[in-house]
């Protein structure tokens, strides 16, 4: 967009305008205390001051709360930040999470006061740490398949958020971040290139200098975030751009992004092969949105293909207990299609981080070796596989579906129905067999104290199976028992891992999922590892403050057990014994009381519970609480893994 002279907001111009409209401000100045009355901060010892001036009449009135506010002329009739909030609202963004900061006071004031009703879609969410704010957005995006906003305060807010930004980047999750920049307030909070702090692990950033450019940048940040490879984006907004009066600015019309799809020839070919195959197989990885999951189900049903899912590893994949999901009646597949997963005869996978890293990581930090050849690419191919087609599977699905519908003959339809029925029967049997194995694995230690992690998942399942639920926390450190004991049939059933393996993720991700859940009559389960919670536990307060339906069940093994095992092994290798491996790896002396911690943040809860027979009743109370919209914590003392 061309730069608008009308809305260009240089610092000097802004200040000049402010000075010109200072009539009201002059009135305000007369109502403040005399300068000498405020001079006690000069460094002089109060005791050496011979006398303190008596308060003025106005000061006394102000103290008594009966002062009449000065009559000021409003010079700002339409702050630019109102337009920004409107643009964000128009994009359907529901929430903006932030820890307060002076650099975005203009923006925050608009978020909470602009609109009718104000502070609704988007609603301002109070975070106690920027890392929590961004991870909330991370969890929300994984649950809903769309971004929310995190607002950051200058250099310090961005650096507080850095770990969470990195995690969202590595997890390829869309997050739109806005950062305030007030160059004339606190020097340490500003920078010449603020976005440069995190550029290597964000997808896109901008620092617009005009209101028009800022509105365009918000649209682009949203589009970049939701376009593969999905990722966090950042718009730095100066105080002036936020606050300037913008009576004549119009929000530009929003143009949705274009997703790269397979071409029509490829779509025809895939449809033909799916229909010609006697036993086609569709493997579904992680799609972008719930709509993509619906399309994947539609295609699988149309062609009667047995289907693989990633629903037990993360969100937005094929329903785990759909009749077609499983190995099917015959594992001799004669045609395979991969949707956001490689290794098939036809694989459609969106671009990975390697696609954007060279332009973003200009200082060659090379996080995770993404820049190195062969890293950050596609999964290794299997026999009979072809190199993946780089396109967005979700956006390509309608093309394949249309082609299948066009090519489908009545004979094929009858054969597909018969095949689907055989798959359904075989998958049901496979499910029961897998479940029996999982149950047999959960049975040992069922009565153990401390409580087995399997028992936590097993006892939870009957209480939530008829609810609309979301497991927001990673389950890998607690045995992953949900994978078989639970049924992951919704796009948000399980939100998967941290992204980059960084701790401090579970609780804030669950709070983000809780934001998504609240208005949707859904409940969120957070099986919370103890070490992970201690990074930024203040997010518990956010859950209470915003009345989020999040049930936290502590997997309290009083240690960082993975690291404990590593040190035990290392000590063994070096022949020094394992007795001291607890040093630095355990959370004892004292034990942390998590229900007291939760109570401090206003969260109801109970525990510690180490008697397994008391667990179910506690979980029942917890589920009842979150169904009322009141977050709850159960501190379960657990077996290590």
């Amino acid at each position, binding site marked *: 967009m061309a730069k608008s002279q009308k809305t260009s907001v240089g610092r000097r111009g802004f200040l000049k305008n402010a000075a010109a409209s200072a009539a009201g401000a002059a009135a305000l100045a007369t109502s403040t205390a005399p300068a000498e009355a405020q001079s006690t901060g000069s460094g002089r010892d109060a005791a050496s001051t011979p006398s303190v001036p008596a308060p003025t009449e106005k000061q006394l009135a102000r103290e008594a709360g009966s002062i009449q506010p000065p009559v000021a002329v409003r010079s700002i009739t339409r702050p630019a930040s109102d337009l920004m909030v409107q643009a964000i609202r128009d994009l359907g963004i529901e929430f903006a999470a932030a820890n307060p900061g002076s650099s975005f006071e203009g923006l925050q004031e608009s978020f909470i006061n602009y609109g009718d009703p104000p502070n609704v879609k988007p609603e301002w969410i109070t975070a106690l740490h920027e890392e929590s704010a961004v991870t909330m957005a991370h969890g929300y995006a994984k649950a809903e398949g769309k971004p929310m906003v995190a607002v950051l305060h200058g250099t310090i807010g961005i650096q507080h958020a850095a770990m969470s930004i990195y995690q969202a980047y590595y997890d390829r999750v869309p997050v739109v971040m806005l950062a305030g920049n007030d160059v004339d307030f606190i020097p340490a909070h500003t920078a010449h290139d603020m976005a440069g702090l995190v550029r290597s692990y964000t997808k896109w950033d901008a620092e617009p200098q005009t209101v028009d450019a800022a509105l365009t940048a918000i649209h682009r940040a949203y589009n970049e975030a939701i376009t593969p490879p999905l990722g966090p984006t950042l718009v730095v907004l100066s105080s002036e751009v936020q606050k300037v009066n913008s009576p004549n600015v119009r929000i530009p019309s929003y143009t949705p992004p274009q997703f790269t799809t397979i071409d029509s020839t490829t779509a025809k070919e895939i449809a033909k092969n799916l229909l010609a195959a006697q036993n086609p197989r569709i493997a579904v990885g992680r799609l972008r949105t719930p709509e993509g999951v619906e399309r994947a189900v539609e295609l699988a049903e149309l062609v009667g293909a047995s289907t693989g899912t990633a629903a037990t590893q993360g969100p937005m994949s094929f329903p785990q207990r759909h009749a077609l999901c499983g190995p099917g009646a015959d594992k001799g597949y004669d045609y395979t299609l991969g949707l956001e997963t490689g290794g098939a005869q036809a694989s459609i996978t969106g671009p990975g981080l390697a696609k954007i890293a060279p332009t973003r990581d200009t200082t060659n930090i090379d996080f995770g070796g993404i820049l190195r050849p062969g890293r950050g690419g596609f999964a290794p191919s299997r026999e009979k596989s072809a190199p993946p087609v780089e396109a967005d599977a979700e956006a390509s699905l309608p093309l394949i579906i249309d082609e299948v519908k066009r090519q489908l003959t009545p004979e094929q339809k009858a054969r597909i129905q018969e095949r689907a029925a055989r798959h359904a029967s075989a998958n049901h049997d496979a*499910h029961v067999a897998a479940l*029996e194995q999982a149950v*047999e*694995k959960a049975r*040992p*230690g*069922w009565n*153990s104290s401390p409580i087995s*992690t399997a028992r936590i998942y097993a006892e939870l399942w009957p209480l939530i199976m008829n609810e609309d639920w979301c497991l927001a926390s990673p389950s890998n450190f607690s045995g992953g028992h949900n994978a078989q004991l639970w049924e992951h049939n919704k796009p948000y059933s399980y939100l998967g891992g941290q992204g980059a393996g960084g701790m401090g993720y579970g609780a804030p991700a669950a709070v983000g999922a809780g934001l998504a859940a609240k208005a949707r009559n859904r409940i969120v389960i957070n099986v919370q590892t103890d070490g992970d919670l201690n990074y930024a536990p203040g997010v518990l307060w956010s859950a209470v403050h915003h009345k989020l339906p999040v049930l936290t069940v502590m997997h309290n093994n009083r240690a960082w057990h993975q690291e404990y095992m590593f040190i035990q*092994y290392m000590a063994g290798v070096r022949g020094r014994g394992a007795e001291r491996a607890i040093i630095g790896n355990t959370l004892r002396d004292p034990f942390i009381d998590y229900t007291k911690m939760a109570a401090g943040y206003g969260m109801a809860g109970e525990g510690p519970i180490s008697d397994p027979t008391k667990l179910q009743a506690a979980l029942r109370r917890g589920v009842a609480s979150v169904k009322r919209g009141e977050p709850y914590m159960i501190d379960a003392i657990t077996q290590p893994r």
Partner: protein
Amino acid sequence: MKNAIGDWRLAIGCLVLAAGLPWAVNAQQNGSAPAPTSPVTGNATSGKALYYSYGCYACHGYGGETGARPFVGRWGHLANEREFVTFLRGRANVAPVIPSGSMPNFSVETLPDKRAKDLYAYIRTFKSTGPPLKDIPTLDAIVDAAKHEK
């Protein structure tokens, strides 16, 4: 000749083991292998203290039934004291490139034979405490619900 006889006996022994192997492997895999009955000479009370101070529970659970490598029903290298001690001494003594959560090595200097036998004595006190499935209504109901799913 003595050696030859020894070899002959060894061969017979291997055949017997091989015949029983499929059953044994299966039992180990499904966690139903019977507990060893070999003699125990160590002191289980001392062994319990060692089990905690060495952090064995980190991988094997507080009762040997849970975690990454439960003992109960999968006795593996716990058939007798000698095998157990040999196993402890035979773990890796070269640092891996990447961190490992595998079974650590316990040299004789850090865990003398007597203490190792105490540890073994404590491990041998572990028993299967998991009730039969029919006595765990929660698990039974989960399987039952799946069986009747349409």
